[in-house]
Structure formats: C-alpha cells, structure tokens
C-alpha cells in the first residue's frame, strides 16, 4: 500500500504541471488589466504602462509562465498585486477560517449523514424513513446561498443565538468559543452534502441488505443491530467512501458562495475578491493549492477504498 501511495504521489507531478499551465492560461484570458485596476480611474496611460512593465506583465505569456513556474518550484507563489505581500502569506491568512470551516462541515456531514442514513435504511418504509428521505431531498435541492440567508434570519436576526458574519481567529479573545461563528456557515455548507450522504448510505445499505451474506449473518443468530452495523453498514461504507471524494469537490465551489454570504475571511472569498481585483498571483496560487488538495484527497479516498474492500488490490 505504501508503494502504491508513493507511485500515486509521483503521478501527481505531470498532472500538476498540466493543471498549472491551465490555471495560468485561464487567469490570463480574463479580460481586464491588473495595473489599471490597481491604479484606479484617475491613472494616466503612462502610469498604467509603467506599472505593467514593473510587474513583468509586458513579457510574452510563455515567458511569464516559465518564470512563475520556476518560482513555484522553489516554493514562491509570487507577490500579491493587491496586497503587496507574498501570495503564500495571503493564503495562509485565510487558511485558518477555511480549514476550520471544512473540518466542521465534514463533522456535520458525518454526524448527520451517516446515522440518519442508517436509521432510514433499517426503518425502511416507515414514517421515519419517509421523513428522513423527504428532508434529505429538501436539503439537497435548496441552494446554499438561500439556506445561508434563512439561517442568518432565524438564528442571528430573530433568535439572536449565533453571529451572522465574520470570524475572529481562535487565537483571539474568545478562543475556541469563536468557533460558534462557523456553526451556521458550516451547517449551510454541510446540508446539501449531508443530504447526499443520507441518500447514499440508505440506498447502499438497502442494496447490501438483500445480499446473501447478510442472510448468513442472520442465520448465525446475530442480533439485528449487529447484522446492521457489522455486516450491512460495513459493506455499504465502500460505496459511501467513494462519495466523500465528490463531496470534497462540491465543497470547494460551495465554500466560495458560503464564505461570501457569511463574510468569512476564508480562501473562498479570497478567490472571488482576487478575481475582481485581477490579482493573478493570488488566483493562480489558490487554484494550484486546491488542485493539489483535491488530488491528495482523491488519493486518500482510493486508499480508504482499498482498505475497506479487500477485493480491491492496489497494484
């Protein structure tokens, strides 16, 4: 398994090179001149031209790419045009929010998706199942921004229980209690994905329940809960593990919307703002990091898959 992981990691290199080229080209295809954006409406064409030269944006695109790539390989993602600070530190500023948001979202997805899915499957056809399936359908169809706004309206505006926006770092005053700022956003982000997991857990458990080996397990005289957990759920998990890979991909795009709705200083909002500012180095840096993260998570999902299903061989 270690050899397989190493080989998969090495295979990341060409993929990353291709991704970096795509990212670079796409960003440069966006119309708009960063120098002009930076200098504002009052700048003269001469000033804009001077700044363009200064930032190296007058060089041919392929040279710009090679230059950027060379720096990236040395761990330098460049300097933000807008902030004037290294891209890596700009991203690091937003990372705490986004990482905590992602972790809390995953926690929501697991604690909501898995148990409700399991109960739904074991109480198949009863009102419990219908309620869970109906709820899952509802949450899967509600757009993230709409749900976010309604949660703010209910829990922040009407009830006043939770803050509606922003996020002070857990190293600031309040410490871990600051995590309450992320409760609503993480729930918003989790809802459609948890709904997906509920439906998937339920469907795969119902599939497994019909398999012959479950009948064998019952014939052993095992209690129903043991059959449900050790035999049905354990086998259903194989299909669910694969879904966590897709869920992560969905989270990235939904995080952009959610961080904007809740004004969170995270990476999702950074991307949106950087695009508006034509801050090329930041956009490239963030997207590159997301690509790496996405590929690593997919590798982890594949490893989990092999670990869950002994029939899958990692050769």
């Amino acid at each position, binding site marked *: 398994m270690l050899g397989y992981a190493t080989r998969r990691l090495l295979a990341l290199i060409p993929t990353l090179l291709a991704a970096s080229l795509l990212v670079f080209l796409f960003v440069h295809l966006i119309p708009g001149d960063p120098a002009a954006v930076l200098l504002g409406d009052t700048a003269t064409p001469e000033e804009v031209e001077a700044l363009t030269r200064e930032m190296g944006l007058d060089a041919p695109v392929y040279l710009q790419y090679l230059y950027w790539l060379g720096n990236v390989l040395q761990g330098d993602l460049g300097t933000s045009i807008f902030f004037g600070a290294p891209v890596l530190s700009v991203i690091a500023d937003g990372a705490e929010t986004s990482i905590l948001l992602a972790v809390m979202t995953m926690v929501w997805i697991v604690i909501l998706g898995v148990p409700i899915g399991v109960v739904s499957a074991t109480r198949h056809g009863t009102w419990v199942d219908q309620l869970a399936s109906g709820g899952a359908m509802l949450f899967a169809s509600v757009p993230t921004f709409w749900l976010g706004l309604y949660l703010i309206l209910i829990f922040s505006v009407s009830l006043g229980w939770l803050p509606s926006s922003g996020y002070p770092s857990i190293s600031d005053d309040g410490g871990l209690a600051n995590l309450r700022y992320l409760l609503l956003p993480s729930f918003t982000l989790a809802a459609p994905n948890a709904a997906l997991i509920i439906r998937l857990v339920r469907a795969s458990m119902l599939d497994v329940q019909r398999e*012959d080996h479950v009948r064998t397990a*019952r014939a*052993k005289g095992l209690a129903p809960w043991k059959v449900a957990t050790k035999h049905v759920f354990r086998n259903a998990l194989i299909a669910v593990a694969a879904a966590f890979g897709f869920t992560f991909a969905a989270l990235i795009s939904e995080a952009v919307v959610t961080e904007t709705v809740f004004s969170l200083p995270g990476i999702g909002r950074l991307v949106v703002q950087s695009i508006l500012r034509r801050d090329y180095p930041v956009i490239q840096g963030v997207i590159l990091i997301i690509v790496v993260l996405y590929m690593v998570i997919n590798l982890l999902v594949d490893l989990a898959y092999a670990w869950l*299903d002994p029939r899958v061989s990692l050769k």
Partner: protein
Amino acid sequence: MTQSKPPLLDVRGLSLSIATGGSLMPVVRDLSFSLNASETLGIVGESGCGKSLTSLAIMGLLEGTPVRVTGGEILFEGRDLLTLPARERRRIMGNEMSMIFQEPMTSLNPVYRIGDQIVETIREHQPMSKTAARARAVELLRMVRIPDPQGRIDSYPHQLSGGMRQRVMIAMALAGSPRLLIADEPTTALDVTVQAQILKLIADLQSETGMGIILISHDLGVIAETCDRIAVMYRGRVVESAQTRDLFARMRHPYTRGLLDSIPEPDEDVERLPTIPGRVPGLDERVDGCAFHPRCARASDICREQDPAETAFGGGHAGRCHHPLEPDA
C-alpha cells in the same frame, strides 16, 4: 415407536403465505414432517414448490421477506420455534441449528477474513477468548478437510474456490455443534466433482456428530444418494414421502415418477428425455382439486374437483393422489 423422546424436528401443519398488497397468497399448505437425530431428510421439488421457504421458516429467516407463517408449528426438540421470543430463537440459530446455502460465492461476507467470520459465530454463542475461538476455528476448518487450515484462516472469501467456500460455510455452520443442519441446495452452484466431495463431507460429518440433516434439492439424484427419507413437494405440499429405498422401489405419485424419468441415464439410448408436460402453475393461479392434475396423465374428474387427502401406503410411505401408481409400475 416410543413416545419418550420427541423427534429432533417436528413440523406440523405448517402454512406459509406471501403478503401481496392486502392479500395473502398461500405458498406452503399444511406441511408436516419430522426428523430424528442422525437422520437425513431430503426435500425435493421444482423451483417455486416452497422447499426453500420451508427451510427459511424453520431457520427463522423469513423476517424481512414478504412471507408470513399463517399456521402450524415447528417443534425443535419439543419447543415450538414459532412462539419463542426473538432473543431465544437467535440463541438456537447458528448454534443448535444451522444452515448452509446454495451460493457459496456470495454467502460469505466479502470484507472479512474467513477466520473472523467463523470466530464471530463461535463467540456469539459461547463465551470464549479470541485466541481460543481462533484455535477452534482452525479445528473446524480441519474438520471440513480444508488443507492447511492455519494458513487459510486469514484468507478472504474471494481468495477461495467455490468448493472451499462451501466448506467454510459448513465449518461456520458446525461452530455451535448443531443438532440440526439445513442444507439448501448446497451443491447446486458447484462443479460435479466438487458436488460429490461436499455431499460426502456432509455425510461424514453427520456420522461424526450425529446431527439431523434436511437436504433440500431439485436434484433427485443428489437426494437419492444421501438421504434416508425423501419428501417430494409440489406447489407447497408434500405429495409423496417414504424411505428412500421404498420410494425408488415403489413410487406411487405420478409427479415423483415424472421427476425420476426426467433424469438422464447414461446406459439408456433415448432420443429425447421425457419431461413432465406443462409447467408449475403460478402462485396467483387458482387450481381446484389436485394441484398436479393439469399436468397429470392419470387425471380424472375427481382430480379436478377434490384435493386428495394423504393416503398411507404402509411402511411410512404416504402420498396425496386419487390414482396412485401401482406398486410394481
């Protein structure tokens, strides 16, 4: 026969129905048979005759299926399994009574090592340390003649052949030293050579342990080789039952005759194998009188009108037929 000890298994008037929408469709009607220790009863019949459902009902595996027990009792050593609380029933399952199934390829959980699956069964019914249970699992694998049980115990099911998997299933079934083993088509999915090995293994284990066996098959040949007594089922009923030797010597029901005639015999030079004309009527089709009459050459008016009662032919041989074949036929 003395009345001192009840038979190992005594099924009395068992009726099963499939619940469809609001109505119940009978699939097994008024089924009775009994089985003693060290005895093998073969239940034979075509697909859909209710033989598998009967075995699931005895084992207690109907839960989660649309099949309901609508009457009768299943006495296991005198206790009626149908009225036992679920927990006590589970204490018998996999322990005093166990079952092996038709599909060894899919009957084992693919994600667990076979040793763990056997250990699970052992520890469910006997308080035992993991190490002791593992040693017992190795012993069970040796009992079912799996070569190198120490090495095999950590295999996953997909690493074993069909025959080996069925041996593992049997080992698992033996984990609790059962007094009754139900084998539902245990060799149907296997190669012919492996079939013979598995049947011999089951017979050997029976003489070692003295368990009673119910062997369910559509194959009269398999049944004939291994069983002391045979019950022939047709459309949810036992139409003929007798000691094996007696049944083959003097079969009385035209359906049994038809089943036997459709087995190819290598030394006979026949153009075409005889078949039983027609097909088994669907469960939703109502057949008045004897259920076999639409396919029976001997059918008369009474067969169309009246369901035959059980007739005893003597020597434990019984059948349901208005026009039984002559004993010499």
